[in-house]
């Protein structure tokens, strides 16, 4: 037993001593937690780019309040337990503000950690309503509209513009997709003009979705609302069209992604998806796009503009507050307007951005255009 203990000493000591965080006092540590590896990495990585671009911009002008901005990404793979670790890591590195977590579940798990250390967190992508509506997280802000707004919009669009009477609601059983689908269903059933004839979850990664498609067909639905991400959406749309089911397909922000069109090809034509209000007319939008193309030589990925806006809003708030004091930053966020790629925004009392909403888009000739 003694022998065992001594080797345990060695192992534990060895592991314990690796990597002890270092923070420098004269920097503003800008944490960017989110999914940077794993299957949702494509939603998290663009936010790092956005943070870096904004930080570079400020640093070139001498930083914020005379202090340089240091971007510190932390990976959470969208897993709650890793999100808590990432949050603690940022706290121990004395982050001033954080932009992230990507997934709502991870964000919920991590927020109390930031809350305790008085750190403002702003997510570019976490759309779950209770994050703001529950009132549990006063330190939380976001530059994206809530799922309930999105679900409501998808439902009313399907009923009013498409004239659907019987609507099949499908989701991917995920945090985001099921949330959206539930709000859409509630909106459909509450509208009085239409009913939801089907509410089903599909298993992401299943071999095929023909059974669900047959079920939709069997239900006599005249439109489908789908909550989830583009891989499942494209599989379902393709299966529907191949089975001669030509009813409208309305989906969410997770589908409003150029990849969806590339993957689904011709079958993508005519698909509707809600997405953040089109702000491409906004001058800052063009600036951010140009900066990204210059720095990374590629088109920006999902949530890039929301992230860029969040980074600008955070830095602006610190500047306006004139300090890194939590209360002052919060006050500045709620009172001071800031120009961002998603529009001129400030935050309401619960942390949602005012003036950020959703629009409905449609695939026409291989691109998303605003739907009439």
């Amino acid at each position, binding site marked *: 037993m003694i*022998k065992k203990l001594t080797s345990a000493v060695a192992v534990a000591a060895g592991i314990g001593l690796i990597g002890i965080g270092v923070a420098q006092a004269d920097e503003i540590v800008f944490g960017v937690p989110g999914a940077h590896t794993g299957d949702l990495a494509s939603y998290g990585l663009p936010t790092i780019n956005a943070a870096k671009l904004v930080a570079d911009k400020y640093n070139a002008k001498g930083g914020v309040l005379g202090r340089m901005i240091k971007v510190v990404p932390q990976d959470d793979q*969208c897993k709650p*337990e890793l999100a808590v670790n990432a949050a603690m890591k940022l706290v*121990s590195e004395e982050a001033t503000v954080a932009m992230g977590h990507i997934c709502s*579940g991870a964000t919920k798990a991590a927020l109390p950690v930031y809350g305790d250390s008085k750190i403002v967190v702003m997510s570019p992508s976490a759309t779950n309503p209770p994050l703001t509506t529950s009132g549990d997280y006063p330190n939380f802000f976001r530059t994206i509209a809530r799922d309930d707004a999105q679900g409501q919009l998808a439902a009313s669009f399907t009923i009013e513009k498409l004239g659907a009477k019987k609507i099949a609601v499908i989701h991917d059983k995920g945090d985001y997709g*099921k949330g959206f689908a539930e709000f859409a269903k509630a909106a459909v059933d509450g509208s009085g003009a239409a009913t939801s004839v089907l509410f089903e979850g599909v298993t992401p990664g299943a071999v095929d979705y023909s059974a669900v498609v047959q079920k939709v067909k069997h239900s006599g639905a005249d439109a489908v609302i789908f909550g989830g991400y583009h891989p499942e959406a494209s599989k379902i749309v393709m299966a529907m069209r191949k089975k001669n089911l030509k009813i409208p397909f309305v989906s969410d922000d997770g589908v409003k992604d150029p*990849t969806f069109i590339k993957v689904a090809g011709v079958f993508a034509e005519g698909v509707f998806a809600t997405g953040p209000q089109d702000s491409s007319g906004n001058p800052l939008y063009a600036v951010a796009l140009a900066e990204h193309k210059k720095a990374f030589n590629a088109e920006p990925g999902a949530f890039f503009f929301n992230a860029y806006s969040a980074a600008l809003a955070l830095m602006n708030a610190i500047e306006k507050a004139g300090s890194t004091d939590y209360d002052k930053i919060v006050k500045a966020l709620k009172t001071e307007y800031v120009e961002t790629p998603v529009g001129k925004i400030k935050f309401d009392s619960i942390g949602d951005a005012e003036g950020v909403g959703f629009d409905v888009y449609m695939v026409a000739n291989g691109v998303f255009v605003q739907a009439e």
Partner: protein
Amino acid sequence: MQDLKKSLLTAAWFMFLTFPIMVIRVNTVEDTIEWRWHNLALVGISAFILSYVWRYFMVRRERGGGKPQTDAAPPTPAWVSIVIEDKRILYPLLAAFTGFVASFPFLFSMYQTNIMISAMVFVMLGLGLNIVVGLAGLLDLGFVAFYAVGAYSYALLNEHFGLGFWVVLPLSAILGTFVGVLLGFPVLRLRGDYLAIVTLGFGEIIRLVLENWGAFTHGPSGIANIPRPGFLWIEFGLKDGITFMYYVMIALVLFTILVVTRLKYSRIGRAWLALREDEIACQAMGIDKTKTKLMAFALGATWASMAGVVFAAKTSFVNPASFTFMESAIILSIVVLGGMGSTLGVICGAMILILLPEHLRAFAEYRMIIFGATMVLFMVFRPQGLIRDRRRKHTLKKPDDTPVSGDAGKVVDAHG
């Protein structure tokens, strides 16, 4: 010369094998094709070098392979024996270690303390699974189900009835045992691999129910704001809460080690071992097979469930994403890489598998591929794990050095 030829062949083979995937990258989204010829050279050179390394270790393994499995562990390095035998060195070292463990939260940041708690949660899980797999030899691929039961029982009992950590911890232990018996009863008469797939199925079923039974479990959006444990009437802030949890975990891990060690050398422990070695002989000796297996299954579930409670309290949030097959695989790897049956091995396994990826955040992309390769290499070159299980031996008499031919046949059967 022979070696050179072999290595060249290996290199050529791997260059062929990895050609499409390593060299050509077709992006059908962007409609681009990228040829990465440098990768071909890279694969060739690494395969060439690695084939030498592989052969070297294979030869070493062959030589070492003849050594008896039953005999004592490999010779202890000199420094270890010096340290152990000299009490002047040993006691201060032990004291230093105890001191280090005790003062850890004050020496390191909250983050470090927190991942230490994570690691200890996995130590508990590993020790629990060790009862099932390491001691009783039942391959359970759905162990994470019991972990989920614990985590959700705390989350739900807290949400609906406001029960605290200290009330739920023993409750969840009972619940875990109960679920273990419930799931164990129908499946335990299955053998080996069938048991493995059915437990995998149960693990998935429990996760799917958590995901889909929204009215009860809040589905994929999970349950938030789960409180950390307090002490009597004291509620802690975040930092003190984490520190307190650290000590709670230390106590729980010590308790687990104590119980598992007692179990291992108890009557039931010997029955498990006998069961693992030979089920039929075991029955012939009058061991109640079902009861013994069920004990192992239920006890494993008990610890997993308790670890689940700690997990829920630590993360303050649960959703089904934390209870996938991958978690089961990681717990199993902890047990196997650490050394099946060995308590210290499991502890080291958990520390390495949980802490290393945290510290290797910089290599995040390569983390999993290294993890996979390590599992294979360990099985090939060190199947007994980091630390070989050593059992107390009862030497009644010197064993006869002539084995019976029946035994001999069995050895070959095992090869077959």
